[in-house]
């Protein structure tokens, strides 16, 4: 296959003589060449030139892709930081999870917030997107499983405040993330990984401050809404028109 369409050296030519599969592939390749389509697109140039001129007049200098990725990272961290500060001011400092468990997990969530957009939006690192989604989902699972298991003796339904905080804190980063995502071609893993990373701002702030460490609470009011926001953002991106088709 590597030499298909190129002149064959004597060794390969000898191999082809005795290989039915290679003969068939070669003859199909050769035969298809008789059915070429030569298209001329020069008539399109005036229209392309007009629209390209307008685009260049609006934005003469191209900004590199990582400018917007860094801006999103900064926004993620800012939202998480402000939320954390607000929770602290409100006296919500009750996460009873032992520090050696809580801080490494918080570190992973912070990594997703800051480095996640840079990995997700990189044009040539498409292979790392699945890894990013898996890391994000593992971190979500970690939030539930590494919780303290204890909490106030209140019914679970009082966790609505956590749910609202999670969703509310995600709105701005997810909205900005969707705008950036629509600047390139739709890529399912990129959309999912970036949506989860953007929704992590609320997850981190809640994980640091929420006093309820029961697994059911963490799943229903922290991680569940986080996954839901990520999934909704993914579905929304699939329906949004792309401003460009660049990878």
């Amino acid at each position: 296959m590597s030499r298909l369409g190129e002149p064959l050296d004597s060794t390969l030519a000898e191999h082809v003589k005795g290989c039915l599969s290679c003969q068939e592939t070669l003859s199909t390749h050769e035969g298809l060449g008789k059915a070429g389509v030569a298209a001329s697109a020069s008539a399109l140039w005036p229209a392309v030139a007009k629209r390209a001129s307008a685009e260049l007049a609006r934005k003469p200098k191209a900004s590199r892709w990582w400018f917007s990725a860094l801006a999103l990272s900064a926004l993620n961290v800012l939202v998480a930081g402000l939320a954390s500060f607000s929770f602290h001011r409100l006296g919500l400092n009750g996460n009873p999870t032992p520090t050696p468990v809580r801080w490494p997990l918080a570190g992973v969530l912070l990594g997703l917030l800051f480095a996640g957009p840079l990995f997700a939006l990189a044009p040539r690192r498409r292979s790392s997107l699945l890894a990013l989604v898996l890391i994000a989902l593992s971190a979500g699972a970690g939030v539930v499983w590494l919780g303290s298991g204890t909490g106030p003796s209140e019914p679970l339904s009082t966790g609505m405040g956590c749910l609202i905080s999670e969703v509310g804190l995600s709105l701005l980063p997810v909205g900005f993330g969707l705008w950036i995502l629509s600047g390139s071609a739709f890529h399912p893993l990129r959309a999912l990984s970036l949506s989860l990373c953007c929704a992590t701002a609320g997850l981190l702030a809640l994980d640091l401050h929420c006093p309820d460490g029961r697994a059911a609470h963490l799943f229903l009011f922290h991680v569940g809404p986080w996954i839901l926001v990520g999934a909704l953002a993914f579905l929304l991106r699939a329906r949004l028109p792309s401003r460009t088709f660049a990878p």
Partner: protein
Amino acid sequence: MGSARPQSLKPDPASVRNQGEEPLDARDESDETLMLRFCDGDSRAFEQLFQRHAGAIQGYLVRLVGATVAPDLTQASFLSVVRARGRFDRSARFKPWLYAIATNAARDFRRRRRPDELTSSGELPDAPVRPGQETQADERMQARVHSAIEQLPENQRVAVIMHRFQELSFAEIAEALGVSESAVKVRAHRGYKRLRELLRGLWESQ
């Protein structure tokens, strides 16, 4: 860095008159050099890239989505080059990037069309051949080859079209599709094998 102020891209009468021809000083420049010049603000470089690749891209899109929408998607692809020039990796090759854009434009088109508007392979039905598309073989052969290619799964179809008709190397196809070179070879091999079955007897009878 060059000037940030773009030059006019209004159609130059001379370039329209000499369609397909590049200015003498651009003939030796690689696509990558032209793209870097464009990223640095030289809009003439974009015109040269268009003249070099627009015909091939339109031919590729004709095979992927049919002749009716190929010109619109060709325009959209080149406008994407303009709008997303900040996403071009300065160490990458231009041609695979451009084909990735065109492939994405075709996928987006198929994804957004209602299923009842398309044939099973995602084309508009009864796509007429537009004037200016010169056929090199007889229409019957074209139609049969076209129909056979339509029956391939998308990943095999894209690999075969890029390799056979656009003459991209396997490495370039791999770069355009974001997969490994060996994966592209497997797809192309399966595609050629399936085409051989579908087109059995066609060339023997020519």
